[in-house]
């Protein structure tokens, strides 16, 4: 045997062994020794095949900017009072504007000086208003607003990651995308609704004082005194499960927020056998809570989560330990989830669901079995066609084809690529198109044989002449596949992946491997007729 065949044969053999080695964990799963399973992962199945959830959430960054302006307005309010500057009121207006309304030019100048000293980054503007007042408008600079937005998305991603970790999902994906979007993929999730509620809940916890002397009926008609807001207290009847909502008016100003939490845990109230969430403030929070309770003994304080009042207990005494509890007729799962979101921290801004694709495990299972069935049937048809048309040479092409599918699988598992349903379609398609290279070669060989060339010479010429054609044809298809990979999303990307891998693998098997087989059989043998 000539040296070249030996070397080429060895290359094919090594590739085959490597391919089988990396495919084994996918096919045999747990029956392999541990080191083997650790060395190569089984082929990663996409969400459409194994079931799971694909979410795209949009972070409402405008709200983050607004809430920054809100907190600025609290600070400005405190500063103005501290410096005894007379002003009519402070308000936040559309587009993140902070407006201070003063009575005269003196006060206006004082406000200017104060703002320039304390908030140099704000862009100011003075406008005369009706009734002789002067409106001082302040706005965050474009860059500052962008920073806040950017930070909000980053923080939201971080918080969601914490929540997903606490929820316990294997191999979750969380990614930031353009346009303030966050992509979340949770494979194999059992309870998608619960996961969405857990991940997407803003979980902004506020402690607000109840405005007792406001007429609820008037408030529901929309007549609210300045600085108060109408909220609803949620209550679930344990026996009937009916949810009632009681209106309650609170002061808009937040007395204390959940940012100052250190820990949150589920406890069981032994008297009613009812779960509640116990929260512990950090040092700053504990001090504020202490001051707050001391100043408001006998008044009611509402515990507000995402604009829903969970409870509004009367403060009976000063609480200095820095812990409190949120009770509100929870089920134990609700209480657990609430504790999780409070521990993981609140989202800096509310999120919206922009895209949600959830596939149940049973459908994924069906898709796999149908996909495998079509690969097998499609391959068998192609095998039959090739053998009928090209006889023994067809058999060589079939062998190359089988190796091709094995190599595609091996590369998928080695590269850690994800197999999706369109990806399976890509493999099936590759099977159909992979024989093309062999068809091109065989047709050329037949032509050369017709011209009276000897089998070996005809093979040589056939492979040689078909080579550039095959390269040109496959490289352009590869080009289309790569573009698809760049612009495709989700499952479609999977199609591009298997198509690209399939093209590369088929070039190797159809040109290189099939040639080695021919050479192996024709070597040192005087073949007069080629079975083609």
């Amino acid at each position, binding site marked *: 045997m000539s040296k070249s065949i030996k070397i080429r044969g060895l290359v094919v053999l090594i590739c085959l062994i490597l391919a089988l080695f990396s495919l084994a964990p996918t096919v045999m799963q747990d029956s392999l020794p541990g080191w083997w399973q650790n060395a190569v992962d089984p082929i990663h199945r996409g969400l*459409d095949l194994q079931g799971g959830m694909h979410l*795209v959430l*949009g972070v409402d960054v405008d709200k983050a900017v607004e809430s920054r302006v809100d907190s600025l307005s609290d600070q400005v309010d405190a500063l103005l009072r501290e410096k005894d500057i007379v002003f009519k009121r402070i308000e936040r207006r559309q587009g993140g504007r902070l407006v201070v309304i003063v009575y005269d030019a003196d006060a206006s100048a004082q406000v200017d000086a104060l703002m320039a000293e304390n908030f140099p980054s704000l862009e100011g503007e003075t406008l005369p208003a009706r009734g002789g007042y002067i409106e001082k408008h302040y706005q965050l600079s474009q860059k500052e607003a962008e920073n806040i937005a950017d930070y909000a998305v980053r923080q939201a991603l971080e918080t969601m990651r914490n929540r997903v970790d606490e929820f316990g999902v294997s191999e979750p994906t969380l990614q930031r995308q353009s346009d303030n979007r966050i992509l979340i993929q949770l494979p194999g999730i059992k309870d998608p609704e619960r996961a969405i*509620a857990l991940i*997407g*809940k803003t979980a902004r916890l506020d402690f607000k004082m109840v405005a007792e002397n406001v007429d609820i009926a008037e408030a529901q008609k929309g007549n609210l005194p300045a600085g108060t807001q109408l909220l609803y207290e949620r209550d679930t009847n344990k026996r009937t499960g009916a949810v009632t909502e009681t209106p309650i008016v609170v002061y808009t100003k937040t007395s204390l927020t959940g940012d100052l939490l250190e820990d949150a845990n589920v406890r069981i109230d032994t008297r009613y056998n009812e779960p509640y969430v116990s929260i512990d403030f950090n040092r700053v929070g504990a001090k504020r809570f202490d001051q707050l309770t001391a100043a408001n003994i006998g008044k009611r304080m509402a515990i507000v989560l995402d604009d829903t009042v969970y409870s509004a207990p009367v403060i009976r005494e000063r609480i200095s330990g820095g812990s409190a509890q949120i009770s509100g007729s929870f089920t134990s799962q609700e209480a657990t989830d609430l504790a999780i979101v409070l521990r993981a921290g609140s989202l800096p801004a509310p999120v*919206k*669901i*922009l*895209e*949600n*694709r*959830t596939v*149940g495990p049973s*459908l994924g299972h*069906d*898709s796999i079995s149908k*996909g495998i069935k*079509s690969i097998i*049937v*499609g*391959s068998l*048809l*192609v095998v039959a*066609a090739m053998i*009928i048309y090209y*006889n023994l040479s067809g058999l060589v092409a079939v062998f190359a084809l089988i190796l091709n599918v094995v190599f595609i699988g091996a590369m998928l598992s080695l590269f850690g690529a994800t197999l999706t*349903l*369109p990806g399976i*379609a890509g493999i*099936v*398609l590759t*099977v*159909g*198109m992979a024989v*093309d290279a062999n*068809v091109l070669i065989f*047709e050329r060989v*037949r*032509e050369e044989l*017709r011209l009276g060339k000897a089998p070996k010479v005809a093979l040589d010429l056939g492979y040689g002449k078909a080579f550039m*054609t095959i390269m*040109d*044809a*496959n*490289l*352009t*298809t590869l080009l*289309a*596949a790569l*573009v*698809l990979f760049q*612009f*495709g*999303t*989700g*499952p479609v990307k999977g*199609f*591009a992946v298997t*198509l690209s891998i399939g093209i590369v693998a088929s070039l190797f098997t159809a040109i290189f491997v099939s040639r080695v087989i021919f050479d192996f059989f024709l070597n040192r043998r005087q073949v007069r007729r080629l079975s083609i």
Partner: protein
Amino acid sequence: MQLIKSDTNIDFVGKRKIAIIVSLLLIAVGIVSLISKGGPDYGIDFAGGTLVQVRFTEPTGAAEIKEALKGMNLGSLVVQQFGDDKNEFMIRMENTSAKLKGLAQSVQEQLAATYGSDKVDVRRTEMVGPQVGKDLRLKGLKAILYAMLGILAYISWRFEFRFAVGAIIALIHDVVITLGAFSLFGKEIDLPIIAAFLAIIGYSLNDTIIVYDRIRENLGRHNKEGFSFIVNRSINDTLSRTLLTSGTTMLVILALFVLGGGVIHNFAFAMLIGVLVGTYSSVFVASPILIFWEQRQARKS
């Protein structure tokens, strides 16, 4: 076995005028259908909307499901049987909900209330907001456009510019006819279909390039015979390969079409049409365009 004898010489080029009429007719039918339906029928991936795929333990009907959901004010609602069994359905709504408790969940609860919660299995839900749908549509268009530009550049480099033009016109021809067929058969276009379109582009191109390659080779060999003769000779030379490869590809696509299941069904349909049209176009569109080009050049000079 040999389907095409080696001395076969069918006059493909001579029939190019008929071929053009056939192509234009196919394109016209598709475009008329597209216009009368007000554009392509986008699936929720591109139009936005909500989709719920439900399997019931017992057979039911689309009308019953619609009846069960009647009180929910869902906007335009389409209920379709999924696959061959009478117990699996796809419910598609134009509406979306950005809220945490989505529309799909409400539909699920309503169905569970009507049919009994252990009789309803929601196997898939998809919600695509209008903005995301618009983005995906743009991305899909971009993908097809960039793929074509890349191909134009590659073929211009490997062959000549006129070959590239011929190939691209053949590709547009294939995609437009497939798009028309989708509209005609009332099938929706969603993400996997874009993948199918790109696969069609790849496949049709494959076919075209193989004929072009032969034309280039024969140009050196039969210099005296005239360009149309060479083109026709090349098509005949590669005919056997064209038929065999299309044949094997069609076999696997048929396997996908019949056995692949509902999700893959439309994908396979697109490929089926695309491969047929793609094979036709590399013989009857891509190559004759070279001749038209040649004749125009000759008339100019």
